[in-house]
């Protein structure tokens, strides 16, 4: 951004005030969660908004131990990591095929993939569960990994296809004409070229998989994932908010961390991907 006029500077400063308030509202929940995670339940009920008086780490200990978060955490890492890896590979393959290669019924295939994005989870709950059982995937991590891949795939394929289609023609044409060695083309050319889109997708899908409750509840009933563990902390009647907050802090911490670390990469990656044609 070169020179900015004084008038524009005024507009931007004026806009910054409501934007700062909005930013505060976005930080507030984190403060709320951490602050209340340090209270005991009685302290929370008697004073919900105030600063914690004598902080206790009891809730974190309970969450990690009794609520078995240490096990759930590992499950979540394995399942999320596995699903994201499978998602990125399959989406990149399909996106490459749809955007670059030429074959019959290409449009139809694309439309079928897009249309399956519109199938809400609730619509397929019972049949989906029966499918999982029929394939012997109940209570297996691989079952959950494949389920996640299936549920978040349409969007990922779309994004990869759109990304590859936006690349300069010469690049993709060359890749296509290069014939027969499509594997190498995909591995050495398309995958590296797709890095910015893959990073974005990686973050989004990590978020979806990590935060999912419903699919995980159905597929993994013995060993659970972190979010299911947290939801199970919410009792029938009472919610022990401090304990829940401690669980949320534990579960959100890795995601926030990943986001903050990769934040620059997303934007930098996108800037690199914006090849001017």
């Amino acid at each position: 951004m070169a020179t900015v006029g004084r008038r524009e500077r005024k507009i931007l400063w004026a806009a910054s005030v409501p934007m700062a308030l909005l930013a505060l509202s976005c930080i507030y929940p984190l403060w709320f969660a951490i602050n209340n995670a340090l209270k005991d339940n009685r302290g929370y009920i008697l004073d919900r908004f105030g600063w914690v008086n004598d902080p206790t780490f009891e809730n974190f200990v309970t969450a990690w131990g009794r609520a078995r978060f240490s096990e759930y955490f590992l499950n979540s890492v394995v399942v999320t990591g596995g699903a994201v890896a499978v998602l990125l590979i399959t989406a990149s393959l399909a996106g490459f095929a749809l955007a670059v290669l030429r074959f019959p019924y290409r449009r139809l295939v694309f439309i079928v993939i897009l249309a399956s994005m519109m199938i809400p989870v609730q619509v397929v709950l019972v049949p989906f569960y029966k499918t999982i059982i029929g394939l012997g995937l109940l209570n297996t991590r691989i079952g959950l990994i494949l389920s996640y891949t299936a549920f978040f795939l349409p969007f990922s394929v779309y994004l990869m296809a759109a990304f590859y289609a936006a690349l300069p023609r010469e690049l993709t044409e060359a890749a296509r004409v290069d014939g027969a060695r499509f594997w190498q083309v995909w591995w050495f050319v398309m995958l590296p070229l797709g890095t910015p889109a893959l990073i974005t997708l990686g973050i989004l899908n990590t978020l979806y998989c990590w935060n999912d409750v419903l699919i995980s509840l159905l597929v993994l009933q013995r060993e659970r994932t972190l979010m299911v563990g947290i939801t199970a902390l919410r009792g029938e009647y009472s919610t022990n908010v401090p304990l829940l907050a401690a669980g949320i802090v534990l579960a959100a911490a890795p995601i926030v961390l990943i986001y903050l670390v990769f934040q620059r990469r997303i934007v930098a990656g996108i800037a690199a991907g914006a090849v001017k044609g």
Partner: protein
Amino acid sequence: MSAQRRKAIGSKAERRFAALFLLPSLLLLLIFRIIPLFWGFTLSFSENGEWIGADNYVRAVGDTNFRDSIVNTLLLLATLPIWVMLPMLLAILIHQGVPGGKLYRAVYFLPAVLSSVIVGAIFNIVLRYDGSLNAALKVIGIDAVDWLGSSSTALGSLIAVQLWSTFGMSVLIFLSGLSTVPDDIVEAARIDGARFWQRLFLIVIPSLRPIIEFVAVVTTIGVLTSMFGLIYVLTGGGPGTSTTLPEFLIWLEQGRLNRPGYAAAISMFLFSMMAGVAYLQIRIMSRNANV
């Protein structure tokens, strides 16, 4: 075979590899989404294992709760422009170098990271009758409003909370789109004396059109299928039916009321409603993906 035609369908090797590359995706979708969809369709013609024909659909048409949930969905869809415009405006401002922009960019995404459980718990406390929002309004002399409890404000409040918890994602998408708007064109316009707003409306926004459409699509899918968590925590579908969306009704029928067949029938209505919206979106998306 003409050259043109050969170009459209590709060489034999190309077709074979295309099929191979698409196979994993198509197989997964077929097994976990498409077959279950048709299976669910057959379930909607039965209740408790008995075949009852189209009864569930007849019941749905006469069910005032279901009709209310459709009206609520339409009201929700009517707010779509806000869901797109607000993040776009924020992204443009950040892109234009608003003071503190880098910080905002990082922070706006935080609500999207939190699960609806904690977002709900917090807004429960903020929006309740004796909550902090009413306390703040009292200071500036506005009477207390039962945001989540009165029929006129509950849906609006719910929508606002969902918007708050997802706008950061859209801001990110717009920001990535903005980085592809060629700086030199914007710069040229500036040198030509175009004002801030002129540059915004004549150059920046038109070049963002694919992103705008993309955000609209993603948002529509999101609001139609992933608001259950917030509804459950914030309003429980009430008061009356004022925040009951089809998704919530499906949950109620399937679980507490133990009528899976009826739930499946409502699901099919939800799917066909989405398919209607989807038709428009597929057209937009396949154009944008250049396929």
